[in-house]
Structure formats: C-alpha cells, structure tokens
C-alpha cells in the first residue's frame, strides 16, 4: 500500500486526485491539504510514501516546499503551466503532471512511484557494504565500519573505526545517495555521520568516540528526528 497526501491551494484540483486515487487499490490517499502549514505538521507526525505537490502556491512554491521534505518521500508535481518542469526533475521528482491530466496519465505516475519504491526496497535489503573506487582499487567497505565522511574539495575522506581513512574522488551529495538514509546523515556542509557512531549531541557539535564534528543548524532538525529523547 502506498500512503499518499496531496497539497494544492485549489480545492478543486484536490478533488481530481481524490477521485483518481479511489480507483486504485494500492493507493491510500490519507489526507489532502490546501494549507502548506497543515501539510507540514502532518508530515512531521506521519510516515508518508508519496506527495502530490502543486507548484504555484501562495506561501512558498512547491519546489521550495519540496526541498524541506524527507528524501524518502516520492514527489509527483502537479502544475497548470510548464515553466518549472526542469526544476522538478532536478529535485529528483518522480513525475510531473500537467493540469488537467487524465486518469491514464495519473496511473502512469503511480506506476513510476511503484517501481521506485520497489527498487529502493530491494536495495535496502541488500545494502550492507559501500563499494567505492579509490587509489586504483575498488574498496568494499562494510557500512558498520564507517564513522563519518569528510568533504575535501572534490574528494571525500571516509573515516573508518580502525583509524583507516579512504580518500576517494566523489561529491558529498553523490555519496549520500549511496548510503542508507536511516543510518547516515548530513550534519554539516562538509560532514556526513553514521548515526550509530554518535555519542553525544551538542548545540553545535557532535561527539563520536574520538572525534568532534561541527553540527550546522540547517541539518540539526533533521538529525534530531532520529533521536527520541
């Protein structure tokens, strides 16, 4: 079952999504919102697989809204006019629906969502190692060995628990995608940390067993979600 919500400032646009969702057995449209604030508080309290998101909205547009979302949520943009298409795909939106759209076109979007979720589930089950190319070898690093990853211009330095460091040519964004998001998180422009390695969380720093890393306010809220105090 795919649990979905929809956000659009126009109630009639939401009615279309409601009507279509009812025709599909594996889509559960949990709630629809005209208010971005209401949608945000719902998202904080509930696990959602998919959001239908209008682009032109009064408070902030759907693309800005989307950048604050948990990366695991699939996004299908809906819009009446095409100027934002490219931006939508840059944010890794699953699909992009031009209003008005048919039930058939809507079904295509859902099919894409299904496929993406399926692929991710497979990857999640198998993912125990990180394969990365460095100094003419492919390193197959057990995820549980990684303490944190540091950015060095065009390179990254992977710090392992046995004091070894592996330097590879990679971007932070790219490496983050290769890691399971429930185990690794960005805490700073230049740092990704393994959640299980964290010993204490301070106001603006994180302590591991033998390292202290800076914590940037931008990433703090997201990080705190993993710790139910």
């Amino acid at each position, binding site marked *: 079952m795919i649990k979905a919500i929809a956000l659009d400032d126009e109630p009639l646009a939401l*009615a279309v999504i409601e009507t279509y969702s009812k025709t599909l057995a594996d889509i559960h449209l949990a709630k629809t919102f005209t*208010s971005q604030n209401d949608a945000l508080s719902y998202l904080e309290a509930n696990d959602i697989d998919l959001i239908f998101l209008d682009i032109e909205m009064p*408070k902030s547009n759907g693309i800005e809204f989307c950048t604050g979302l948990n990366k695991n949520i699939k996004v299908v943009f809906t819009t*009446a006019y095409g100027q934002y298409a490219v931006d939508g795909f840059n944010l890794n939106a699953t699909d992009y629906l031009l209003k008005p759209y048919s039930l058939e076109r809507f079904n295509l979007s859902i099919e894409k969502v299904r496929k993406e979720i399926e692929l991710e589930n497979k990857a999640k089950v198998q993912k125990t190692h990180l394969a990365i190319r460095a100094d003419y070898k492919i390193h197959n690093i057990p995820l549980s060995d990684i303490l944190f990853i540091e950015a060095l211009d065009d390179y990254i330095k992977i710090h392992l628990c046995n004091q070894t460091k592996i330097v590879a040519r990679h971007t932070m964004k790219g490496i983050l995608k290769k890691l399971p998001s429930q185990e690794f998180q960005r805490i700073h422009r230049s740092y990704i940390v393994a959640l299980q390695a964290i010993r204490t969380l301070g106001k603006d720093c994180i302590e591991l067993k033998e390292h202290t890393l800076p914590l940037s306010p931008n990433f703090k809220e997201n990080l705190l979600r993993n710790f139910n105090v």
Partner: protein
Amino acid sequence: MAEVNYLKAKVNPHFLFNTLNNIYSLTLVKSEVAPDAVLRLSNLMRYVVTECENKKVLLSKELEHIENFVALQKLRLSEKNTLSFTVNGTFKNQLIAPIILINYIENAFKYGVNPETMSEIDIKVQINGNDLTLIVKNHIVVNRGTSANSSTKEGMQNSLKRLDILYPNKYKLKVDDTGTMYTCTLQIDLS
C-alpha cells in the same frame, strides 16, 4: 510568435490552465456548476480573441469580461477568502479600450487569495457618465518575494504604458500599499 505573446498578455496561461483544470474537476464529479463555467470561459476567450482587435469596445462588454473572469476565479476560493464585486451607474454606450482594467483585478487575485489566511477582495466599479472609477482593494496574503513578482511589474508597466497612450492626461491612478492591504484606484475619463 508576436501573436502568441499578445495573447499571453491578455490571458495568463496559469489562469487558463488552472481554470480548465477546475472545470475538469467539476465535470469529473458531475457538478451542476460545470456548464456555467464552460460558458464563462468560452465567452472570456471569445472576447479576448475577437473584441480585442478593436480599438474601443462597449464598456458594458468590458465589464462583462471582468464579471466572467471574477466568476471563474471564484472557483478557486476557499471559505477563508471572500469576494465582492459591484458595478454602480448606468451604461449609455460608453466606449473603452479593451482589456485595460483586467490587469488590476488579476493582481488582486494573484496576491489576495491564500487558503491559509483570511482575506477579502473588494472590487467596485462606478460609472458616472463618462467618468469611470475602478477601486480594487485586497489583503496581501501571498508572499510577494517568492511569487512571479517580475511578471507583475512587467504587467503593471505595460498597463501604464497603454493608459498613457490611450488616455493621455485623462486618467488618474492611485496605489496605496500598506504591506498588508493593497488599494488601487483608477479613474478614467472615457470621453
């Protein structure tokens, strides 16, 4: 291409496709409002593609156009946003340059509608012989920083240019922007 731009200046594609989507939604749930909305959109488009060729049109037709626009915009509103539209005075075959008023009304809907915030849009048209007064008053409930602000500025500049050409020294435009409330008063001597 020039013609496409010309048309775009008069019918905002966002408005057109959102309205089509709203009408589509109404038909999907077999709403009784749908037929009226189709007729209003047809009349609105017909006005734009035919009447706008003319230098001057009947004031009554221009106001009918605005009425259609307002009725279609009404489909978008949630219970938080209220709207009033009144026309006072008598029509005596006065003429007006087409599509000269709609810009001010479009902006009221662009910045005055937000399902998260209570707001009011008040549009008044007063006709006194050849004197026309349009007063558009709306709360500002849309973040003006993120919205397509430059397109608004461009629209307003074009509209001022047209007023200068078509009604030199015969119009007065007053804008009062408090940050939360926007009031725009446009007076035109149509003679």
